[in-house]
């Protein structure tokens, strides 16, 4: 029993650290939210209801049902032949993943 408890504790702390490897610092998270609202917003709309680019609200994304990896790849590498530019100079893949997770649950306000 004691062993099991010990094991659980290790497991939980590992899980927590895996999550935090993906989790940007609060300052960076703030910057990313601002960037999505303002700079992605110039094409997707500040409310993310769409503009030249499609809506990125949770509802719209779920409606189109695109795999998460593909959305991350779109953000990082852009979509050639469309106005969606690549953002890899300004964010890492895990930050793009964090943005997609936030988008899918309803993007935070600034």
């Amino acid at each position: 029993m004691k062993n099991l408890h010990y094991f659980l504790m290790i497991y939980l702390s590992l899980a927590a650290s895996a999550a935090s490897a993906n989790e940007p610092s609060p300052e960076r998270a703030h910057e990313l939210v601002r960037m999505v609202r303002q700079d992605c917003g110039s094409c997707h709309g500040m409310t993310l209801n769409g503009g030249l680019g499609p809506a990125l609200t949770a509802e719209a994304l779920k409606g189109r049902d695109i795999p998460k990896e593909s959305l991350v790849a779109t953000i990082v590498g852009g979509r050639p032949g469309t106005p969606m530019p690549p953002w890899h100079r300004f964010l890492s893949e895990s930050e793009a993943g964090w943005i997609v997770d936030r988008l899918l649950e309803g993007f935070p306000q600034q």
Partner: protein
Amino acid sequence: MRKFLALASVLLLSACAGQPLRGTGDLGLVIERASGHLTLINTSTKAPYARVEGLGDLSHASTVYSRDGRYAFIFGRDGGLTKVDLLEARIVKRVIQAGNSIGGSISQDGRIVVAQNYAPGGIKAFDAETLELLSEVPAEYAPGQFSKVVGLADAQGGKFAYALFEGGEIWVTDFKDPKKPTTQRFPAGKQPYDGLVTPDGRYFMAGLYGEDGVALLDLWQPEKGAMKILEGYGRGEEKLPVFKMPHLRGWSMAQGKAYLPAIGRHEVLVVDGISWKEVGRIPVKGQPVFVMARPDGRQIWVNFAFPDYSEVQVIDTLSGKVVKTLSPGKAILHMEFTPRGEAVWLSARDDNKVVIYDTASFDKIGEFAAQAPSGIFFTSRAARIGF
């Protein structure tokens, strides 16, 4: 009764005293995109004089003016069309006319206001007095396929020219009978992103995103169709990423030439306004967004897309060179010249302020606070073709 009349006349008089008569020639507005506010401003006092609230989602909002410069028509991203009285500083009327709108235009005679919409793609005409819907033209370029509309501009004789992003066409709609518009279609090129009408109303240009070039339609001889200018200006080199689409308007013309943003190149392209041949290109700091001539055409001011948007460059049209690089504030989204160009107002979104520069000395001559300001629109637009 007599007492009542006396009281009423006193009230009336004091109401008049509170609102001295004034013209609108030096007024304008600043869009505060985050908060849904407008700040009304005066270019003579270089200061705000009122605030108007309740305009919905103003990200990417744009404005046209009634002929007398008194009323501003604001097109919001959420499809809202709001008519604002600059003298009384209040909303006169507001309608939600589409799901997703990008801008609009007003007819030569000032009687109809036309909105250009992304969703549902198309244009809609409204009575400028009442905002009553008169007619609409869906941008259905193929059966069941609708396009986003870009670049709407007023042409002469109650016509409006615009381009279809997905459709790759220029359309010219005639609202002579506002309830029964007729439309002509012209193939233009891949993915037009914005358009402009030249200050004389003769040419409509659509900048292309999907290929290097600009489509040009002579509105005096539309039967000749759209021709392509600046074809292959990228010379086959790989494009730099475009983090924001440039904006075109008639401010591109100066001294008989058009100064146009390149797409995916950090250059301003210069085209002769008669032969429409390229006559030069001017390297600049970043992807140009607004390439705006001072009203006299001596200078061209250029701002940039993310991440270079905290600097602004000034081109001297006599030497054809950048003569000044300024850092007016963080995230410069828009610029507007005073009617005769002695000063330029710039919105610094991330510094939450509007800054004012003298265009001769490049000295800062004013600033005031505004929440995430974006577009700045002065009433002098009321008298310009294509604005």
